[in-house]
């Protein structure tokens, strides 16, 4: 089974700081990591490949340094990595991103399954997976917890929605997004790290995948971020003083005033 796993490099959660004044992300000192949700998609892909044979390719669209994310994914069990990088991709929203990823996937040759994370920790829309499926003209299933091969070209999946878990039989090819916590992502192995170091990572550009320029980047993105701000709470700020008993008494007074007691 040929599997493609889409991963995104994101700022690591504990390194991001925000400028309250300007309402923007402070870029200095930001370190990057593989989107934590994507590790579950990657593990699902590696496990399935081990079971059924075939190849697992990781694909990412991002700046040149996103190559690191691909190497890390290889150290965690992927066979190959492909980078999609071009200035023309910058500013793509999810509609443009799914278009670019789909064009690249079509270029990569035959595949049976495309895996995505459930969402990212930065953009956090969860829209790329379903959008990508539509671009590729195949069905999508989100919130997938497990995948099992029934027979050639046919899988059984568990997907969890609000009310419970559905077990479904589905025909490949398709796109799935993997639920957080669906499995235990393995850590990079020593052999994996060696392979990752030596791996050749091809870089695809707008031209090499033959995208329509009007459908990519800022111009190809119908949504625009018109402003950003750091959320703040307004109103009174007061620290209650004294011994715990005095603090609690003050608190009781506040509850009374608010009509709760």
């Amino acid at each position, binding site marked *: 089974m040929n599997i493609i796993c889409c991963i995104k490099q994101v700022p690591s959660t504990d390194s991001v700081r925000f400028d309250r004044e300007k309402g923007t992300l402070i870029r200095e000192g930001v370190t990057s990591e593989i989107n934590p949700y994507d590790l579950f998609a990657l593990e699902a892909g590696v496990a399935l490949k081990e079971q059924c044979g075939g190849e697992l390719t990781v694909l990412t669209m991002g700046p040149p340094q996103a190559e690191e994310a691909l190497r890390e994914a290889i150290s965690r069990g992927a066979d190959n990595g492909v980078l999609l990088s071009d200035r023309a991709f910058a500013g793509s929203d999810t509609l443009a991103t799914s278009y670019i990823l789909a064009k690249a996937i079509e270029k990569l040759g035959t595949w049976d399954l495309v895996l995505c994370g459930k969402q990212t920790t930065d953009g956090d829309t969860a829209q790329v997976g379903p959008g990508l499926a539509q671009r590729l003209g195949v069905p*999508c299933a*989100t919130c997938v917890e497990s995948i099992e091969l029934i027979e050639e070209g046919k899988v059984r999946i568990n997907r969890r929605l609000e009310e419970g878990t559905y077990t479904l*039989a589905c025909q490949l090819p398709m796109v799935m997004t993997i639920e957080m916590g669906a499995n235990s992502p393995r850590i990079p192995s020593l052999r994996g790290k060696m392979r990752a170091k030596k791996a050749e990572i091809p870089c695809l550009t707008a031209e090499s995948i033959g995208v329509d320029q009007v459908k990519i980047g800022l111009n190809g993105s119908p949504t625009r971020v018109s402003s950003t701000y750091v959320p703040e709470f307004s109103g009174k700020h007061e620290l209650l003083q004294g011994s715990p008993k005095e603090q609690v008494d003050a608190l009781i007074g506040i509850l009374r005033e608010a009509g709760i*007691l």
Partner: protein
Amino acid sequence: MQGGIWIVGEIRENNIDPVTFELLTKGRQLSEELGEELACIIIGPKVKGVEDELFRYGAKQVIVIEDEVLSPFCETLYGEIIAHYARDREPSIILAGATERAKAFMPVCATCLETGLTANCMDLSIDPDSKALLQTRPAYGGNLMATIVCKDRRPQMATVRSGVFKAVPLDENASGRVEELSIPDELRKNPFVLESFKPLEEAEDVPDYKGAEVVIAAGRGVAEPEQIKKLKELSQLLGGVLGATRPVTDMGLLPHHAQIGQTGQIVSPTLYMGFGISGAAPHTIGIQGTKIIVAINKDPDAPIFKFANYGIVGNAEEIIDCLLEELRTLRGGQA
């Protein structure tokens, strides 16, 4: 006339998800501001019978797409069908709750229509000049709020978190038109075959977090069965509900539905009291609508104090014991 505002209603097992009413209430306001009609579209294997309730929340028209092929849920199918009718009728706005289903079929639909989709909105308004829909949403785990517009393409599409708008019904007699649509043959295929369904074990009653006047929240600083038990009593004494941060629900000290925040419940009580909570953005985003925020944390530099109206720097356990004692006496005196 083309145009109009569509709310995609969410009906699961004959229950309407309350986010549908919240969106209809907001939709009413948008419909007045834009002078466009408000419609509710309901789609699924068994959705008929709720039309009157939807009228009561302001829908002027209910579009019903009921068909067995819609079970099991398949986002590709739902998204393509909604896109099919949207192409034909050209609504200017399509909104849905940010439920698991809608978060999956709305991107399919937006891709079919080659338009923009804003995820997990926490506010919607109309730009007075351009009349465009201003869609405000959290990114970076709630550390940043972004206002998104879809300037040139229509429809403007968004999913909206539940709990951010209040549902207000109109009078009992509100009515409207019902229109039933059938699925075109070329779309009438479901690629999924249902083998089995296992309902959530937590079939126990989920408290009404959204409607709660008082929310007590437990953080990692009080993540022990003993403290959780005391906080449960405290929430009962105050007539409220007990919620938690993600580490606490991850540890299994409280059920998953008790998690408050970006990936959990959005609450807007009169009083929120957080014990041993640092105040990470993914959590605080869930309490933004609160009137009075009280935080108890032993670390004076904990970010939660930036949000709190009243703070207590100290050991949460001590405060809990003291508060419980006072409240027991108070309540005892009243009984």
